[in-house]
């Protein structure tokens, strides 16, 4: 294990080191309590009945036989919920119409995708609950499903929502209802003039399949509706506060009546931001007066939660002979799933951001189809959009005979540039990643052997900030109990605690972070958007500064000197003016902590931050592949991920985010897809047939952390979780082209797709 600190972090004591994570032991002994592990006295088990059809009107639901089954205590349907207001609610990844949130949790008059929930049962055990599902009789009136984004956009296509009209660029709404929920556009310069300047123009169309986050823990939600009208929720979520706000809105409770306890969470990647089971568990608990735990099985997860959008995309890009890109036009049509809200906006913002292209036009369409409502998935929208743009850029470089990294460098966005979406760049590591990739042993090496190829691609994600909270109590033993609201999916307890320790000048091991419920800490946004180490760390920094001030004040009080004369040093020594005898007045953090109880009481530091800034992240990936021409199978031979992490607080977890992102990106590139038949039935709703990479499908993933500290953060943090999922697909595509001369136009680039593009010819 590499334990040395990087040159950028040598100035620090804690930041840049690799302590064992505080929650580690519980997670290797099986003691950690994830959502499904919870047992409460008198708890009931629940199951959800789901639609077998992709698009149908519900004519009737008869639950009487299920209710009569021995051991069944309650059955609920949409009509049992309070009527949801037609207003927006914060969902942790933006906002959504409350009625649609409820209808996605449980269908009202219409089912909009296979797996759409229609009823939920609570019983004394889950076997009985499952039996009860078979006794619920639902009558459907089948409607034609709309399964492809382009079909859905056509006039006359069957409509999912009669009330949905296209929101146009000027804020107006289309006259007639449509499956296109909205159209957005970013422009810069003069697009036609830009293409006129180009010597070479390449235009390509792409299609990508829906892909799932694929967290290994399935969804769960436990609720206990107490007799006094308060509601406790326990769930594996990326954001306890957004769950609280959505559940209270749906159940028409006040926020203060609902307490959400985030359990340990087995992965999320954006997919555990929406609520699915929590409101159902709440209503079942209200009806039965007992705690109710609902869990999904894997099939339900794949059918009814998450995925990221399938897309149709078109990119046209023009460049001069010397490689200067003069114009780029991007058309993005994203499947939102059953309700509006695809990440097309973020995709559009990111699509061309790594490059300073004078003339741009980017159009995005958010389109509903009869597939599950999409959820955020790691850099939502960017992997698709940048697959399209990076792919065309690679082809341009090939056409012009230019080195793809050189071409990127000569067009790279730098400090002072502004994207088409109006995002100004400050200090960024875009060029730094490209040059580090150029100098990497991988790029410098020769690739030998037949049917092998190398590809490279860039990735960009903006990252977000927003609200985080941190409370730190100084204990008499000189250690700090740190209370956080961010669920820890990948080591954020460690990386936030380390920033508190650094600020206080104490050891990482002396900080004890806890993730607590919504009644025990200030509002904290979701763990997502690569924001947690950034904003949570900032809160920890401010919390520590608060502690420093209070400790200095206390010392002043003990020494009976003026507060202004006392200072808290970065070495965790509090120093005052010399005493009458000229001896220095100083006391260590630990010694002063021991005196707190007898000198006026304990000290609690607090910080609640709300940051609208963030630190954009860039990455450059290099991949070598070998293609089996006879079978179309692609083997990843070597992979290098270069990424600007800003300051790498805990480098091992930064590397882990990079490697995990690469694995998901490679999965999206090669095999992961939602395979629907024409009736809208998802045929591969299992982890056997939804093919995520296994240990045997990947090589070691070489990481190269570039540290360009973010000047907009006390410790230079940028956020690292999302950008590494972006470059794999375009890099793999380029490597395949380099190996066998075929430019793929779809994701995944599965063996079948590659065979069809080569030996077998198109359909």
């Amino acid at each position: 294990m590499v334990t040395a600190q990087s040159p950028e972090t040598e100035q620090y004591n804690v930041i840049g080191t690799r302590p064992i994570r505080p929650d580690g032991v519980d997670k290797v002994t099986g003691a950690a309590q994830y959502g499904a592990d919870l047992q409460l006295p008198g708890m009931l088990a629940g199951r959800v009945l789901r639609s077998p059809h992709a698009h149908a009107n519900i004519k009737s639901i008869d639950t009487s036989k299920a209710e009569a089954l021995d051991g069944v205590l309650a059955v609920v349907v949409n009509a049992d919920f309070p009527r949801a207001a037609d207003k927006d609610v914060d969902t942790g990844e933006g906002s959504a119409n409350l009625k649609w949130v409820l209808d996605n949790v449980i269908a009202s008059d219409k089912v909009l995708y296979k797996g759409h929930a229609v009823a939920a049962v609570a019983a004394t055990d889950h076997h009985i609950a499952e039996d009860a599902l078979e006794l619920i009789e639902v009558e459907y009136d089948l409607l034609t499903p709309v399964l492809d984004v382009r079909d859905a956009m056509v006039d006359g296509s069957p409509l999912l929502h009669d009330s949905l009209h296209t929101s146009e660029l000027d804020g107006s709404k289309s006259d007639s209802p449509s499956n296109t929920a909205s159209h957005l556009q970013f422009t810069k310069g003069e697009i036609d003039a830009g293409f006129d300047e180009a010597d070479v123009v390449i235009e390509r169309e792409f299609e990508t399949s829906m892909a799932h986050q694929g967290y290994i823990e399935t969804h769960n939600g436990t609720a206990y509706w107490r007799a006094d009208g308060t509601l406790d929720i326990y769930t594996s979520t990326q954001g306890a506060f957004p769950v609280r706000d959505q559940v209270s809105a749906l159940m028409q409770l006040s926020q203060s009546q609902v307490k959400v306890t985030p359990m340990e969470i087995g992965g999320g990647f954006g997919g555990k931001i929406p609520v699915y089971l929590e409101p159902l568990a709440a209503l079942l608990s209200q009806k039965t007066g007992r705690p109710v735990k609902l869990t999904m099985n894997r099939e339900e997860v794949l059918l009814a939660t998450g995925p990221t959008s399938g897309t149709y995309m078109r990119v046209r890009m023009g460049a001069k002979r010397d490689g200067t890109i003069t114009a780029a036009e991007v058309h993005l049509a994203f499947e939102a799933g059953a309700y509006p809200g695809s990440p097309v906006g973020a995709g559009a913002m990111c699509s061309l951001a790594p490059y300073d292209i004078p003339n741009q036009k980017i159009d995005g369409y958010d389109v509903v189809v009869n597939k599950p409502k999409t959820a955020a998935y790691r850099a939502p929208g960017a992997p698709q959009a940048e697959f399209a743009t990076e792919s065309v850029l690679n082809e341009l470089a090939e056409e012009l005979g230019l080195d793809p990294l050189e071409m990127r460098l000569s067009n790279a966005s730098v400090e002072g540039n502004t994207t088409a979406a109006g995002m100004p760049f400050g200090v960024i590591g875009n060029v730094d990643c490209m040059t580090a990739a150029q100098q990497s042993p991988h790029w410098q090496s020769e690739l030998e052997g037949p049917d092998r190829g190398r590809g490279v691609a860039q990735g960009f994600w903006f990252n977000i900030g927003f609200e985080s909270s941190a409370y730190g109590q100084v204990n008499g033993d000189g250690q700090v109990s740190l209370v956080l609201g961010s669920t820890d999916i990948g080591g954020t307890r460690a990386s936030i605690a380390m920033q508190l320790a650094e600020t206080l000048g104490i050891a990482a091991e002396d900080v004890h972070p806890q993730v607590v419920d919504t009644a025990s800490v200030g509002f904290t946004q979701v763990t997502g958007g690569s924001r947690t180490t950034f904003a949570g760390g900032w809160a920890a920094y401010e919390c520590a500064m608060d502690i420093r001030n209070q400790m200095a004040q206390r010392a002043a009080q003990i020494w009976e000197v003026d507060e202004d004369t006392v200072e808290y040093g970065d070495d965790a020594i509090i120093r005052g003016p010399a005493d009458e005898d000229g001896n220095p007045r100083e006391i260590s953090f630990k010694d002063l902590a021991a005196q707190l109880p007898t000198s006026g009481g304990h000290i609690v530091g607090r910080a609640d931050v709300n940051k609208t800034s963030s630190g954009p992240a860039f990455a450059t990936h290099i991949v070598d592949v070998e293609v089996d021409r006879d079978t179309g199978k692609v083997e990843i031979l070597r992979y290098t991920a270069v990424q600007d992490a800003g300051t790498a607080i805990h480098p091992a977890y930064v590397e882990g985010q990079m490697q995990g992102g690469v694995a998901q990106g490679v999965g999206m590139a090669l095999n992961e897809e939602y395979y629907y038949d024409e009736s809208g039935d998802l045929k591969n709703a299992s982890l056997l047939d939804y093919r995520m990479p296994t240990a045997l499908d990947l090589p070691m993933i070489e990481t190269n952390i570039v540290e360009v500290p973010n000047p907009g953060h006390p410790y230079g943090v940028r956020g690292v979780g999302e950008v590494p999922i972006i470059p794999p697909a375009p890099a793999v595509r380029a490597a395949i082209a380099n190996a066998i001369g075929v430019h793929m136009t779809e994701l995944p680039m599965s063996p079948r797709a590659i065979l069809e593009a080569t030996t077998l010819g198109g359909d």
Partner: protein
Amino acid sequence: MASEHVVVNCTINGENQVFLANERDSLLEALRDRIGLTGVKEGCNNGNCGACCVNMDGRIVNSCLVMAAECEGAQIRTVEGLADGDQLSPLQNAFLEQAALQCGICTPGFLVAAEALLEQNPDPTEHEIRYWLAGNLCRCTGYDKIIKAVQQAAGQSVV
């Protein structure tokens, strides 16, 4: 549809256990719901992910694909049995030191599987490790650090 219950006698983590299981319970359900060993995780409930991996009579199995009633007389070892009191096993320590877990939901299955590998092959190659662990899915780590943790526990030098 009513189901009956069965009494099962077996040894779990070295302790004799007698428990009442629903006849329909899998070993996974019995361990989690009847005995309270929730370190054993469910990721797919059909043999595809390895999160529920336990050692049964010296072999790793997916506990979701074993009926509880089948376990009469069996020797079972779960993640809860890996440490010796508060002494973590070398593999557990290696997972912590190599940062081989992010969310940690796959970790119990990987630990049980990797322990069985090292018992029968104390010095595995990278390919052998990857092959042995191919039935254990991890979505967070890209496997790199998991493989390195196993290498570390095998006493191999890890870069």
